Every structure is written in C-alpha cells, then in structure tokens.
C-alpha cells in the first residue's frame, strides 16, 4: 500500500509526530519533539530514565494527550482520545508490565475486549487462528495455555500477539528486555526482525546501548524532553556517541581500577545448600571466598541460586547445609540483625520491594540500619535532628537529587533510589558488601556512579560480593569471578589488571551453561 500525505504526495513515513509538547506539573516531559517512523523499520527511542521516551510513546498510543503538536498516521492527522483509537489506527503498545489475566488462557486474553466473538465463545476456532498468526512471526506459544503457566518471555509474546491480532502495524515496545533473561532476549530480537521483514514497524524504547545497536535500524535520542539526535542510522553510530547524546557528556564504560593488595579472608562460604521459596534445592554445593579489598563476582543465568545465596549470607534465608564465615564467625542461620551488627551491608536486587519503604521519607530510609545507635537514637528515642543531618549530609555527598529529605522515596527515580540505598549501605563502613544487580534498570550515567562507589569501597578495604547478570560489568569490576550453575560452583576465573580475553569469556559462557571449568578443554572449544 502506497502511503501518501494530505496533499497526495507519497511519504515514506507511517507515523510522524510533529513538535509534540507535553507538560507535567513542574516538568516539561516533551519539548517540541519530532519523531518519524518508516514502514518496516525497527526504530530505537533512546534516552535516560525521565528523558521523556515513555511520555512520547504514551501519547502515540493514546494514553496521554499532547499539550501541543500533531500526529500523522499514514499522512492523515489523527487525534487519539484513548488507546482504542490508537489501535484502530494500527498503533499498539506492549507495556513493560504486562496486562494479562493470569487465570485465563492465551486465546481468552487475546480476545478480551474485542467485539468478536460477540456472545458464544467457540474458542477452538480462535485457538487455531491465533496459533497460525503466531507461527507467521515466530511467536510460538500454546493458545490453550493459561497465562500463569507461561514464562515471562512467553507472556511477552502473548502481549505482542494481542496487538497484532488487533491489526497493529506499528508496535511500540516499552523496554521489552528489562524483564527478560539473556536467552529470551535473543528470541525476542528474532521475532522483532521477522515482524519488521513482514512490513510491521517497531518502536523500541530502551536505555541500553548494546541492545539498541544490536537490533535497530534507526535511532532517535531524547535528553530531558528534547530530541538530541533524530532518525540516526544505527549502522554507523558508536555506543560512545550514543551515550554522549543521551547523557550530554562523555561516559566511561570501563571503570578504571586501581591496584589493591587483597587482605585477609572476610567471607568464606563452604559447601552451602539451601532451598528456594518453592522448597526446591536452590544451592546444592556452593563455595566461595572473598578477601578484604577484593570485588568477587558471581556470574550465572538468572535463577541459578544467586538470589538465595545473597539471602543466606544476609540472614534472610536459612540454609540446609554448609557454613558461612564472616571474619571467622559463623553467620548462617541467624536473624538478619546478627549480620548487620557484624558489618554486612546488602544492596538487594529489588530496590522497591526490599531495599526501601516507599511511603517513608528519605530520612527514614537512610537511618534504616543506624536508628539503633547514637547519635540517631538515644535510649529508645529517635533524635530527629541527628537523623535529618545524616540524611542531608548523605544527600550532598551522594548527589541524591530530591528537593528535601522529607520527600517519600516512592517519588524518586530508580537511579536516585539506588543512591539512597548505596548511601545507607556504604556509610555504615561495611566489612562485607553484598551487591545484587546493583545497576539493573539504571541509565548509563547512574551506572557509572554505582561502579565508582563500589570501586571506592574496594579501595577502602571492604570485601565486595557482586552478583550480576551483566558479564561486562563483572569483567570490568571484579578481581575474581565465580560461575554459578544450578546452585553449584562451576569454577573460578582470575582477572589481572582488567585484562580480559576471548578465552575467558568463552570459559565463563560454558560454565554458565553447566560445564565445570576442569572439564573445559580446547577440544571442546573446537566443536562449538
């Protein structure tokens, strides 16, 4: 189908957003933003958290209404007052948090809210229709399966199918990889390519540079509500350039690590065993040791026992076997306070569910581990002045951007929330720091800051356990990396002076998929 604009002249664009402006109280979320999308392209929309990407796309998807500017779809001016209008015009959005009914089947979820079938649900015939549609794009999912039975990746496929079934020609994907495991990301990328080849246009919202360069044809970058790069061809742009466009300054990807002689052993884990929440074995036989002034990484695919490992060390989970020694003291199977008193600090994976109390103020969140001691409390009374002073001091030294320390932390951005947690956990001068996915969901600028803080702690002599799924992060920060697979230690890789080799990465990759280090030989590598 040839697309023409209002004068009848052909236009290559399926969507054009002209000079979009959207104001929220106190923020100009979009400031005269121009955006255009060609048919059949994967167009990345890149920007830090709060740059206005989601606002712009929510306007296109009919969730918000712009204060100024216009939208053209296939050359026609449109005015959406609800997502229903947008989907009628062929624009569908897949949100970061899925909107599915867990107890219903895939088919039922896809048909939900549609006019057909009107009354009788002859689901069988729709099942085959949906299966056929899925096959066309590689969106393989069983139409009869209930949503709760599906993995996150499969649920995402259902969301995409839902939009395609409704006739979406333009698919907006809001940070689709944030919830996926590495293998699932590859699968998603294949699907996106198949759809683009079929003539669908895809908008890919992200703040992860490597993904943007890997998947997209074109990139538009936003910074503080303004476009800093418009429809840049993705082929000839480097990550450094993109980062600069996003953040507005040069960003270093590899943290520079100073030399530090490791001290005595701080954490010694021997043959640890524990169960997960479902009562299945999460750790089978895990051992690891960390010396002071060392960052030791744990690499592995998500769900191989990393979460449980951190919980056993910090006292949040009981172990069924093995020992954890902290400076020679056994710390396993005690209440969390036992470890806190002995200098364990913990940056949990889940910032909002575990790391902070959302409706309490920055001050209340800062004093969480210190309210038991002077000067924050005297006897059983909290000294508000001292607590406020501590919060204000940390706000300045950790550059937490918040109007005042009485603000509830639920209003903070992900990066600022992580700064609150880091400030709290580091200011206790820990002897052991357990950091789980400390940079997940943060933008480039904030990641740089977190890395710098971890390295400072290493220099100050803390022992740091870094559990991460970002291999690059582990390789640039760690002195040693242990690989975990199904709750067992697969092997240990030593990194000297940040020198990493292709061989190292291959070894880690093989260990992550279940081959112990001592069984990896050159012969095996040739076969791969």
């Amino acid at each position, binding site marked *: 189908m040839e697309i023409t604009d209002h004068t009848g002249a052909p236009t290559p664009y399926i969507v054009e957003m002209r000079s979009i402006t959207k104001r*929220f*109280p*106190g*923020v100009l979320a979009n400031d005269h933003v121009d955006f255009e999308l060609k048919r059949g392209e994967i167009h990345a929309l890149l920007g830090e958290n709060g740059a206005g990407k989601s606002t712009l796309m929510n306007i296109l998807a009919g969730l918000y*209404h*712009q*204060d100024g500017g216009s939208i053209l*779809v296939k050359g*026609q*001016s*449109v*005015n959406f*007052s609800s997502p229903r*209008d947008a989907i*009628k*015009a062929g624009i569908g959005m897949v949100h970061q948090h899925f909107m599915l009914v867990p107890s219903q089947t895939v088919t039922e979820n896809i048909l939900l809210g549609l006019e057909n079938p009107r009354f009788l649900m002859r689901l069988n015939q729709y099942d085959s229709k949906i299966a056929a549609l899925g096959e066309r794009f590689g969106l393989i999912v069983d139409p009869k399966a209930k949503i709760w039975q599906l993995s996150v990746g499969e649920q995402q496929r259902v969301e995409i199918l839902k939009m395609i079934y409704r006739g979406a020609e333009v698919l907006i994907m809001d940070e689709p990889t944030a919830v996926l495991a590495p293998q699932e990301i590859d699968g998603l990328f294949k699907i996106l390519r198949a759809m683009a080849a079929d003539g669908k246009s895809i908008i890919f919202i992200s703040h992860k540079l490597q993904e943007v360069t890997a998947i997209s044809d074109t990139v538009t970058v936003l910074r503080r509500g303004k476009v800093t790069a418009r429809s840049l061809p993705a082929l000839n742009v480097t990550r450094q350039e993109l980062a600069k466009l996003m953040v507005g300054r040069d960003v270093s990807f590899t943290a520079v690590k100073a030399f530090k002689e490791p001290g005595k052993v701080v954490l010694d884990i021997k043959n640890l065993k524990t169960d997960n929440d479902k009562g299945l074995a999460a750790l089978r036989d895990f051992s690891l040791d960390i010396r002071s002034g060392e960052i030791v990484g744990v690499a592995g695919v998500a769900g191989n026992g990393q979460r449980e490992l951190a919980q056993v060390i*910090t006292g*949040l989970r009981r172990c069924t076997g093995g020992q954890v020694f902290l400076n020679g003291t056994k710390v396993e199977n005690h*209440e*969390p*306070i036992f470890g*806190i*008193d002995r200098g364990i600090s*913990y940056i*949990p994976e889940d910032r909002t*569910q*575990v*790391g*902070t*109390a*959302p*409706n*309490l103020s920055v001050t*209340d969140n800062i*004093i*969480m*581990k210190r*309210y*038991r001691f002077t000067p924050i*409390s005297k006897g*059983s*009374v*909290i000294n*508000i002045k001292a607590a406020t002073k501590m919060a204000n001091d940390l706000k300045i030294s950790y550059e937490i951007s918040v109007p005042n320390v009485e*603000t*509830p932390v639920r*209003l903070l951005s992900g990066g600022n929330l992580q700064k609150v947690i880091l400030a709290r956990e580091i200011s206790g001068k820990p002897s052991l720091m357990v950091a789980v996915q400390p940079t997940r969901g943060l933008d480039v600028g904030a990641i740089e800051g977190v890395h710098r803080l971890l390295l400072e702690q290493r220099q100050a002599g803390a022992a740091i356990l870094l559990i991460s799924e970002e291999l690059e992060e582990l390789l640039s920060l760690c002195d040693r990396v242990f690989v975990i697979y199904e709750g067992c230690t697969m092997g240990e890789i030593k990194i000297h002076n940040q020198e990493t080799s292709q061989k190292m990465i291959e070894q880690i990759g093989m260990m992550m998929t279940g081959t112990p280090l001592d069984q990896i030989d050159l012969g095996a590598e040739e076969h791969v």
Partner: protein
Amino acid sequence: MSDTINPLTRARFPFKIQVEPRLSEPPSWFPALISFGAVIIALIIGAVLIKIAGGDPILSYIHIAKASMGDIGVLSDTLVKATPIIMTALACSVAFRMKLWNIGAEGQFIMGAFGASAVVLSHIFPETTSPWIFIPTMVLAGMLAGGIWGLIPGYLKAKFNVNEIITSLMMNYIAISWINYWIFGAWSEGGFQMSPKFPVNSWLPRLLDYAKTYKILSGLTTHLGLVFGIVAAIILWFVIFRSRWGYEIRLIGDNPSAARYAGINLTLNTVLVMFLSGALAGLGGMSEVTGMVHRLQTSPIAAGYGFTGIIVAWLSKLNPLVIIVVSILFGGLILAGREIQPSGVPKMIQGTILVCLIASDYLLRYRIRIVHSAEEA
C-alpha cells in the same frame, strides 16, 4: 476510514475534564483543605436528604450544633461520648499503622471493662479503699485484660499466620458472652442482668464532684477518662513518631520485607503491637465502666465503640492527635443525632461524611484539570 482515526471531525463540548496522577507531593496544607471540603460536601448532601425527608436542613444543622456544643452542659455530654471513642480509635490506629487489621477493639474494650469490674466485684479491696489505690489497679487490670484479648490474635498471626481480621472479630463475640456469663451469674444483682453498683471510691472523678467549690461544674459528667484518653493520645503520638519502636512500627507497616532486611523482628512486634492495641481499647472499657456506667452491664458497654473506633482511626489518617478532634466531633454527632431522630438521619450524615472523606483521598493522588478542547488541536 478517516472518521475512525480522526474523532475531531465530530462536534465536541468545548471543555474536557482530564484526570492525571500527581507526580509530586501536594503541599502540606492540602490534605486538610481536602478533608474540610469533603465534610462540607457531605453536609450539603445530608441537607438535600433532610429536605427530601421533609425536614428543614438549616434548622436541623443548627439544632445539631446546639445540641452537641451549644452550652457547657451538652459539651460535657459530647466529651463523655467522645472518651471511649478516643481510646478505641487509638487502639485501632496503632494496629492499622502496622497493617494489622484489628477489628476486635470492641471485644478488647469489653474485656477492659471486665478487668476493671473484676477488681471491684472480686472484693479484693474493701469498699472504703482510697481511690488512689482503686483507680490505678483498675487501669492496670483493664489494660491487661484488653491487652490479652488483643495478644491472642496477635500471637496466632505471628506464630501461625492466622488471619487477624477473623480471629479478632470472633473474639468480640467471646468477650460479650464472657461478661454475660458473669452478670447473669456470679455478679448478677438480684437476678438482673447487671452487676451491683460499684462503691463510690472506685468511680473516676467527675467534674460535678467539684461543684461545691466551682458552681459552674454542677451537673457535668465529664470524667477522668477523658484525661486518660488525651494523655494516651499524646504518648502514642510520641511513640509512633519519635521513638525507635515507633520507627520500627512505621517501617513494618510500610514494607515488611524492608523491615526484615533492616533487622527488625516482625514476630515480636506483631505480638507487642496487638497487645498495645488491646490494652488501649481495654483502657477505654475501664474508663467507661468506672467513669460513666458504674456497674458491669452489657448494653451501655458493648455499644459498638470498638467499631466506631475503626472509622475514627481511619478518618484521622491514624494520627493520634487528630483522633482526639475527630472523636469529639463524632461524640457530638452521636449525641445530637438522637435529638433529631433516634436513628436514621444522624447515622446517614455520619455515613455520608465517611464516604466523602474516603473518596476525597483520590484528590490527593490525582489532579483534575479542565482543558479547553480547542487548545489540544
């Protein structure tokens, strides 16, 4: 095709109401203004309903105001009504602060009355014992009895994760049956379903006791229980917002996982907070039986103060100091309501106020904007 994607071609009302989530915290005076506005709206709705029922709304409201706050006599009666509500509301507020849904303030209140009565009716002290011994003993007994009644659901919750809503609710019925057992049996006064009148030395002092010196106080039944309530509210405010324990309670209430992560003992705190909650309700029961009723009897004691306390705690946003004010307003409404009609309209006004106040919360989270449709295009 074009009209499906271009709804602008349709004729439209020139203004549109848009609801947007608030992205920043509203100023501190804003919640108070919203609550005030909600009460005004509730009174307007109430006025319409009174009108429909055939009454004169303005006269009715004036009458309510006069009958609850009009002179020192009725004001005193309002305060007497408010006293038990203050304490049950405090009881609910401390449990709710930790997201423990204690629906059993009623039963804990009744047990508090029982505990205080037991001190008198078991005759461990002679009738001529000084009030300086009687009253503190009754306070302790009442708080202990109420506290134990709260502790049982608390312990079951902490130890076996039994739903405290169900257990605390059921404990109410056990409490009623328990005092019935005593007033029908061992403590019955000549076969009537009530205990004998307590000796005067065990009564909480009332304002009218001082009428000999200050004539103005004659006939005023406001008793020492009000002071207990106000002191308890001030102490509770301090505990919640200024003490280490209060910090733990607030942290657990907002995010139990974060509290556990911060090394706080959730089990112990669940039991302690439920005990405190029960003890506060028990103090209310004690003050009602020794300050007002002067004998153990079902109907004036088990009058639903525990349930009113839930509403008042909620309306006060769990703030102990606000509870004092809201309780007095509720006391007035209960008292004066009976002046217009024994039931019906006054309860309806209470209900309308509650609904409006709860609905007004929406405005704290969302803002409403009126936009001119023309400016969107």
